[in-house]
């Protein structure tokens, strides 16, 4: 196979993976960073890194996990670099507030705000389980935690959300 053909196929493979998983990458980044603009930057960086290391992905069935792990790492890098302070929920920037843009469903809006207000430790496993469909053992592996700790965080996250919504 000549090099241009190999590169073409490599690009085709990359584009196919990105087409399938871009939405997951963006939503994961957005809920990790709680900021739409930062999420876009993180996804850009993650795509670049994924492109460079695409050949290390041997099985495309594992692509989602691989890409989300890159997003997670890039998000951590971003915050390390910028040394951003934690989000003050009463004083959001436009880009942070954009994540909470109102929908026609008031209940969903309230819940979205409650999720936004969760600590990172609770929000991340919840997003990974409910939105991304991962099992608690997979979440434990991704976050470097024991499965019991993930279960506890998920349990607390749901109770916090139920309490928040009940107070609305």
């Amino acid at each position, binding site marked *: *196979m000549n*090099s241009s053909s190999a590169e073409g196929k490599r690009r085709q493979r*990359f584009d196919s993976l990105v087409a399938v998983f871009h939405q997951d990458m963006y*939503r994961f980044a957005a809920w990790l960073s709680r900021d*739409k603009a930062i999420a876009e930057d993180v996804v850009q960086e993650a795509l670049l890194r994924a492109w460079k290391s695409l050949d290390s992905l041997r099985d495309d069935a594992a692509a989602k996990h691989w890409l989300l792990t890159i997003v997670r790492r890039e998000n951590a890098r971003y915050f390390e670099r910028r040394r951003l302070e934690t989000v003050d929920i009463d004083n959001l920037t436009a880009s942070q507030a954009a994540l909470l843009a109102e929908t026609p469903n008031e209940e969903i809006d309230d819940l979205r705000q409650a999720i936004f207000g969760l600590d990172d430790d609770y929000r991340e496993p919840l997003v990974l389980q409910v939105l991304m*469909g991962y099992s608690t053992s997979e979440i434990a592996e991704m976050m470097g935690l024991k499965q019991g700790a993930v279960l506890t965080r998920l349990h607390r996250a749901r109770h916090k959300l139920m309490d928040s919504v009940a107070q609305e």
Partner: protein
Amino acid sequence: MTSEQDKTFQALDLKIAKALQIDVPELRMPELPDIDETNVTSLPVRKRSMKPLWFAVAATVVLATSISLRTSSLFQSYESLAEEVLAHLDHEPDSLRITDVAVTERRLMRVVPASLARFERDTSLITYAKSCVINGNEVPHLVIQGQHGPVTILLMPEERVSESTPLDGVSVKGVILPVGKGSIAIIGDREEQLEPIQENVVNSVAWTT
């Protein structure tokens, strides 16, 4: 956890899934640098099973009818959704085992997340559940045990079809049913009575996307 708590959390999860589904901006692909030629490796080629199993033959048959959409997977182009669905069985021969071991509730919830569909488990024995890619979309791939062997079910919320499309292989038969804004494919042995299974499945699934 009591069943009441379980139901409360399931209902909550549905709402959480909706709340988490924020709008996604159009993809902005970064400028991708050239990769050193020496580092470029050939793509892994998906090898087709050479085992003389009935489902292997299914992928090669002429379909009785086809859907006008031209579909493609990550690796291979197909002339129709029907063709890709049948070929997909060939990609996962492990799914078509005869067994009485059911997948766990947890695995089922992982493969059919609340953000995609609400799936009420009926009395069917679900023996396989995996998230697969059909026509570039993630699709829950389930297998239940029918009277004449495994029956494959593909939940395809993103694949709209205008009418029921029969799937016709040498040893298998099936159908792609329009369900709401998506569709569900059900494929089993030629001897299998698929109609009651179709009815159960369609009544058990509600898209949440």
